[in-house]
């Protein structure tokens, strides 16, 4: 019985370990890389080789090119306001808004007992360390999804930070209407939240 050459099988096997990629997809991807030829494969392997130079920031846990990330080492950033997010992708999203001049803290997940993720599995202890009185943090902004797990995580962090340092103000992103949206088409829950969290103008 014919099988692929061992080296191709090896490539397929490694690709199929990636999230969201099944065996068929892995096969197609591997054959695609082969057909593209050596230069494309070299470019890919060089990119993969670069992974060793990417690190976690010592302070906020975000992905970084050095020991301390560009945000944490930027002197213009307000070190007194920490925006807490679930993942590195969220940092990029919030950076695009240009509205947060402080620093970040990446949790790498949310509390989710059913998936065996408890506070200790997240970077919450590091956040508590950053919240100690000597660090002069004024505000912690929780930019965490409004889901069951997001609510639990926010509540947990709020309690723990308050215990560590009661002077820190803890805020959470408001739930409400998207820009450009029509009130007529908003669902009653979102609209209700927007009414509760209305602001004086």
């Amino acid at each position, binding site marked *: 019985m014919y099988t692929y050459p061992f080296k191709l099988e090896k490539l397929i096997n490694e690709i199929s370990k990636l999230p969201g990629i099944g065996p068929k997809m892995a096969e197609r991807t591997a054959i695609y890389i082969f057909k593209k030829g050596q230069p494309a494969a070299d470019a890919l392997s060089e990119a993969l080789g670069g992974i060793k130079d990417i690190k976690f920031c010592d302070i906020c846990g975000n992905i970084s090119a050095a020991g301390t990330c560009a945000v944490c080492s930027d002197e213009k950033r307000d070190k007194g306001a920490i925006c807490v997010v679930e993942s590195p992708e969220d940092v990029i999203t919030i950076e695009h808004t240009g509205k947060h001049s402080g620093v970040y803290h990446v949790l790498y997940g949310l509390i*989710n*007992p*059913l998936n065996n993720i*408890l506070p200790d599995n997240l970077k919450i202890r590091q956040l508590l360390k950053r919240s100690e009185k000597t660090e002069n943090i004024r505000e912690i902004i929780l930019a965490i999804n409004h889901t*069951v*797990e997001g*609510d639990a995580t926010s*509540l947990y962090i709020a309690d723990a930070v308050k215990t560590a340092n009661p002077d820190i103000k803890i805020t959470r992103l408001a739930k409400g209407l998207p820009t450009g949206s029509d009130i007529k088409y908003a*669902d009653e*829950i979102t609209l209700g939240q927007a009414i509760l969290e209305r602001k004086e103008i």
Partner: protein
Amino acid sequence: MYIKKIELSNLRNYSSIELDLVKGINVFHGENGSGKTNIIEGVYWLSIGKSFRASDDKEIVKEGCDSCRVYSEAEVNGLDKMFSLEYSADVRKKVIRINNSRIKKMADVIGEIPVVLFSPEDIQIVKGEPVLRRKYIDQMLCQVSREYFETLSKYLKEVSHRNYLLKGIKEKKVSVSNLGVWNEQIKINGAFLIMKRFEAMQELNSLLASKLTSEKNDVSINYLSKNFMSMKFDDVIYEYENHFKTKIDEEIVRGTTLIGPHRDDIEIFYNGKNAKAFASEGQQRVSAILLKLAEGLFIRERKNSYPVVLLDDFSSELDNPNRGFIGRTLQQFKQIIITTTYPENLKELTPARMFHVEHGKVSLV
């Protein structure tokens, strides 16, 4: 509101059928096993997002097919709207559309086509397990309140997280302190659900007393909870806090959250006596029908629009001595879809349109 047109594609025994329905009574008659109930199931599935007799959506897809779809045109508050629900079995995904635009969450659809289903199984609401009575009240509230629907799904998820933690604590894998945040969320959402259920039951009782009582039958209900004496929000919160403090050891041993709306029940009274324990089979059947009629009137009051009545296998109710009263109450609903094996026995219910169902073919009579 009423349904003008319904199309079923690859659903159960139907490859593709298109039915034009009318206001009033639409009757589908045919032999047992001809596929009458599948039509009602299709309407229900589109409305609620779940089948009433299949636990897995896969079961309703026609054998040998990958996906099924129900499409409907309905008049909602004077506006013509199009609804469709499609399920792909291979990816286990549902796609919902209203007026051809994709709707992300079932929460945005549930209650758009309110329905009330009468089935021969309804007697189980009276004599069956508490879970069926919780389902009765939850389904009614989910159709009239999006907030209830969302809170209920959140609550159930929170309880499963907490139960998983309790098992972990029992096995000494996690510490008790992990429960804190879940206790907080559960008590708030649980108190909301209990309060809403209690309010709904008071409304149901007043509907039962004012519109659904005859000289022979008087049905009323009562919220039954082992733990909560008062259904007021603050009192429930207090009870929860007390429970989480004092019963934690028992919860760890049992590995489950022992109080809350997921454990509560409804007590049903027939002529003042507990219907589950003291009513005859016939009386239990009448009680169930009256509760269902009350559900229909409740939805009508809350939504200011009559739900579509789905009567599955109505022949089983034909020997009911109260059929005259039931028939008259049913007549006030805008649209009724009935399946029956004996159309000649419908009597009080004058059909507006009759269909004959035979081996997956439906023809207008």
